[in-house]
């Protein structure tokens, strides 16, 4: 998937995705008397261009994992390698999407996306063309000059995705990006993200606690235990793409979902009688 020739469309990436390799990664917040062991140690790999979800209960360290992989929080122990190089400073070849869009209220939709160009000092015309294409792909045409408060929750999150992709990073980190959206909007945006990913083949690390989302999007799902989070199971999702709105069409979906529920039950996250 790496170093594929750049296509004509602005969306076609100049490069494929980056690979992630995580070994013995753990995080403890605070100092000894009141230290909180939040995560790990965990090991996992994400291949270049792969879509991997981390699923687990609230507070299990999923978001922390994402911040550590991005080099935005110091790790307590372990190592992270991006494309084989150890991570020592914040990763810049990356796009990040957070749960509640995190758009700047004082910038228009396009202005929020062009923030990347301004801060990173990229070529303005090229970035504008990429932004326009992303807006078209994400159903945002006509929303360019609207401020975030003038957009619906789903559209804000679409702008946020455009902002994460406009500078053509090799990796996309998403922290419960659809968590604040209603179920109907969520299903549509999931599909649109999948199509975009199929075209660009960025490496994606997707944090979620929705079983539907994890199975609907991922090549692999990593299931995490409650804090301090560990990876307790790896499930390879072998479903054709693009996947339908109603995942129940596939008998395998029920099998995957059942497996995740079983793990959650065995961990005491679910206690159904």
């Amino acid at each position, binding site marked *: 998937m790496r170093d594929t020739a750049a296509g004509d469309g602005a969306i076609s990436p100049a490069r494929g995705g980056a690979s992630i390799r995580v070994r013995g990664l753990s995080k403890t917040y605070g100092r000894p008397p009141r230290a909180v062991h939040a995560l790990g140690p965990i090991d996992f790999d994400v291949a270049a261009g792969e879509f991997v979800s981390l699923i687990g209960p609230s507070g299990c360290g999923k978001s922390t994992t994402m911040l550590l992989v991005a080099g935005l929080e110091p790790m307590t122990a372990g190592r992270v390698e991006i494309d084989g190089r150890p991570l020592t400073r*914040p990763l810049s070849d990356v796009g990040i999407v957070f749960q509640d869009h995190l758009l700047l209220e004082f910038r228009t939709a396009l202005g929020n996306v062009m923030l990347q160009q301004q801060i990173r000092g990229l070529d303005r015309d090229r970035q504008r063309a990429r932004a326009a294409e992303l807006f078209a792909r994400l159903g945002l045409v006509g929303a360019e000059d609207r*401020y975030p408060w003038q957009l619906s929750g789903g559209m804000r999150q679409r702008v946020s995705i455009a902002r994460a992709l406009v500078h053509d990073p090799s990796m996309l980190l998403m922290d419960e990006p659809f968590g604040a959206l209603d179920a109907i909007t969520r299903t549509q945006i999931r599909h649109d993200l999948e199509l975009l990913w199929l075209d660009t083949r960025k490496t994606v690390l997707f944090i979620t606690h929705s079983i539907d989302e994890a199975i609907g999007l991922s090549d692999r799902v990593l299931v995490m235990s409650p804090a301090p989070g560990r990876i307790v199971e790896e499930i390879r999702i072998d479903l054709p793409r693009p996947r339908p709105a109603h995942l129940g069409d596939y008998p395998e979906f029920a099998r995957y979902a059942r497996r995740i529920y079983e793990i959650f039950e065995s961990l005491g996250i679910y206690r159904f009688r």
Partner: protein
Amino acid sequence: MNIPGAQSAECPSRSRNLQRIAEPLLWFAALLLLWEVLLWLLDVPLFVLPPPSAFLWRLVEEQERLLLHGLLTTKMVLYGFTAGALPGVALGYLIARSRLAERLLYPLAVFVQGLPKITLAPLLLVWFGFTDLPKVILTALVTFFPMLVDSAAGFRSIDPRLYYLARSADASRWHTFRHIELPSAAPSIFSGCRITVVVTVTVVIVVEWLNSNNGLGYLVLRAMDAADTPLLFAILVVGSTIGVALAYAVDLTERLLLPWRRR
């Protein structure tokens, strides 16, 4: 695509604006009329309380002097306000971004706020005599603390994850400040300006009263010496007009600079 808030609301808002201005004006005129009639009925002497007709006439008569001294007072307000607001915002930023700065500077700022600043006026007079400095310094001191508190609150309200985004984009300190921090804090800074700028008019007038040979405060002294109560009221009108005009100027600037604000 249907986007809420997209349709233009030009026409109804224009007539509503007119109403917003006309209503208080009419209400004011009615109060003045009542005032006039009551004084006439009760036969109150002019030097105790002048009727509106008297001080409005005085306003016209003395318009040149009032304009001259009013402008001098306004100039001092602007100097003093700027001299207090700029360090206030700068320290507000430092305090919001650095725990060390907060520990070192915040107690100091609270102390400055606690000072009954008007008692400093005689001291400033001893130091700087009949110059503009006592007015500017005292106004700056009064402006400083509220501006510090409001801007610190603005800078503190920034979602910490925005800093993650900035760092992942390799943003320089200046870019982070210019593109994220300053515009995020701007609404708080403006609300601080709006409240503070009105108070500073009073401060300048009081200092002019003590040590100056110009400005509205000086004119107050002259009016009192001459037992010219209508002139005193005319000065009051000018002073409050300055305050309202400055607050309006702040509003207008905010609207021009921050067009995204919902209104």
